[in-house]
């Protein structure tokens, strides 16, 4: 197997994969249990331990058979995926087609540690549309190492909403590579609640004028969970907006990481980049690392970034309590309000409702 990244690599400085390298992962076992699926009236592709389950899946007109396409990028996790991938979705939406929604579910479970490496490809032709709702769930010790190749052609719009709800012994590494053409949009939101260690790494290339990227995320972690959200946005054409709002809520001894890099090429004049990362530490042992990075080679650009790390404002808690709201509810209201800004750009009611539901029940578990 290709080597796992170590903290000596700059991109992996804050995320230590040694707990993963200490485990020897076998092949995924067969699954008999039927997963609990959300009640959403959309076509679905359901993977159990990395294998497409046709009985649980429904037909989706634009799904092609899996083909082990060549991956781009040379990140360690991508190379490992290239070596081991056996399946994934392969979606092509023809030009001008509004393909509606698609649900992509990955459910994992097994007694002994195992690993699988989904390799997904999504391509939207000119002016096409797709909303992909992706759910990662599971129980037990396993490693899911996902690669996504995304191509959004001119004027197309791809909404990618993701809920990572793996069990707390799981490892989830997801690497997304998105090429976004002129006037096209890639709108991403990940809500991370699960896994022992998770990392979402997104590389978005804005290749034509007024291409748009939203890379938003919220992570709510407790116990000894570790969640890493790492992005690179490359502005390679003029007039492109990019937006990143990343909110981390960390309880117990959880650790959060956000690394966000914005590269602006010389020709990418009038770039409009916005990046905000905020963390709420609910306990003195929780920790957050934030590393924003701007590399700007054009001279007429607007790029703003900001980062804050803090605790809940006790004055706000008191204000709510003085109005009769019990302390636990007051704290939950403020945490929800804190996350709201990252969730707000999710312009899809059913997805938003799904996220709101799991957020509401997260608090009960803390």
């Amino acid at each position, binding site marked *: 197997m290709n080597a796992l990244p170590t903290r000596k690599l700059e991109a992996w400085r804050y995320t230590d994969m040694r707990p993963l390298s200490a485990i020897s992962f076998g092949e995924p076992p067969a699954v008999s249990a039927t997963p609990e699926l959300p009640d959403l009236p959309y076509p679905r592709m359901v993977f159990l331990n990395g294998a497409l389950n046709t009985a649980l899946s429904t037909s989706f007109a634009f799904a092609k058979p899996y083909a082990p396409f060549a991956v781009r990028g040379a990140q360690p996790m991508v190379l490992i995926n290239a070596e081991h991938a056996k399946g994934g979705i392969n979606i092509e939406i023809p030009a001008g087609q509004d393909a509606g929604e698609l649900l992509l579910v990955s459910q994992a479970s097994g007694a002994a540690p195992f690993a699988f490496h989904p390799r997904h490809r999504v391509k939207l032709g000119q002016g096409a549309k797709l909303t992909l709702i992706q759910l990662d769930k599971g129980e037990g010790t396993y490693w899911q190492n996902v690669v996504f190749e995304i191509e959004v052609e001119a004027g197309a719009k791809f909404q990618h909403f993701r809920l990572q709800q793996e069990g707390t012994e799981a490892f989830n590494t997801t690497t997304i590579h998105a090429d976004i053409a002129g006037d096209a949009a890639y709108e991403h939101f990940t809500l991370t609640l699960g896994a022992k260690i998770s990392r979402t790494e997104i590389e978005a290339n804005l290749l034509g004028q007024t291409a748009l990227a939203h890379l938003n995320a919220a992570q709510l972690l407790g116990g000894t969970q570790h969640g890493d959200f790492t992005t690179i946005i490359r502005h390679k054409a003029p007039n492109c907006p990019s937006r990143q709002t990343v909110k981390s809520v960390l309880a117990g001894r959880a650790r959060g990481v956000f690394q966000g890099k914005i590269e602006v090429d010389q020709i990418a004049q009038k770039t409009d980049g916005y990046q905000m990362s905020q963390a709420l530490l609910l306990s003195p042992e929780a920790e957050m690392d934030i590393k924003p990075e701007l590399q700007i080679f054009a001279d007429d650009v607007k790029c703003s970034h900001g980062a804050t790390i803090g605790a809940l404002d*006790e*004055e*706000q808690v*008191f*204000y*709510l*309590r*003085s*109005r*009769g*709201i*019990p*302390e636990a*509810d*007051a704290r939950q*209201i*403020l945490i*929800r*309000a*804190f996350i*709201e*800004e990252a969730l707000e750009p999710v312009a899809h009611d059913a997805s938003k409702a799904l996220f709101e539901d799991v957020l509401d029940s997260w608090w009960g578990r803390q």
Partner: protein
Amino acid sequence: MLEIKNLHARIGDAEILKGVTLTIPDGEIHAIMGPNGAGKSTLSYVLSGRDGYEVTDGEVLFNGENILEMDPEDRAATGLFLAFQYPVELPGVGNANFLRTSLNAIRRKRGEDELDAVAFLKLARGAVKQLAMKEDFLKRNVNVGFSGGEKKRNEMLQMAILKPHLAILDETDSGLDIDALKIVAEGVNSLRDEKFSALIITHYQRLLDYIVPDMVHVLAGGKIVRSGPASLALELEASGYAGLEAA
């Protein structure tokens, strides 16, 4: 209704309240005046249960019940309401949602049925209109971007909806224009009955023209140094607080 007996409270090492004694009978409205830093807001926070204040002596009975051991939310449920001198902004929290959560939390604690969204909105819209507030106040985030006067009106909106038995207004009149002042006064006067009392903290006689208090107290140096009828406020406006602290 409210009996404060020999109340001593400190913040860290600083003793702020040095033996406050004050009784507000059912149905009465009392005013507290006094110099900056006298401890008026401290008294209001201690009464409503904010953390960070240590009560070293004395007691506070609200309808016969010692409230000093109660959580702030429980004090609110028993009918205590504080209109903050500096209302707190809650970004990301919608005003209507906040009000409804608050009203229903209190109703739940009192064993009453919760109001559904429709019934609540009807109630809230009525109150908004009465306070001559813009309708979009309910949709906005709590106090975020509100002008000083709008924040104070928002406190009055909460009071109108929560219908407390004891309202403490901490300088609600500061920063209000004349029209708003009258609206606030109407808000208080409309709650006036034998089951409602209020403690109005103010620096100005002006508000007391519209809400005529049953008594006026002067808090200085952490103690009530003088009490008298409504006319005391006029007297103070003319003479100031000079010499009172020593009394």
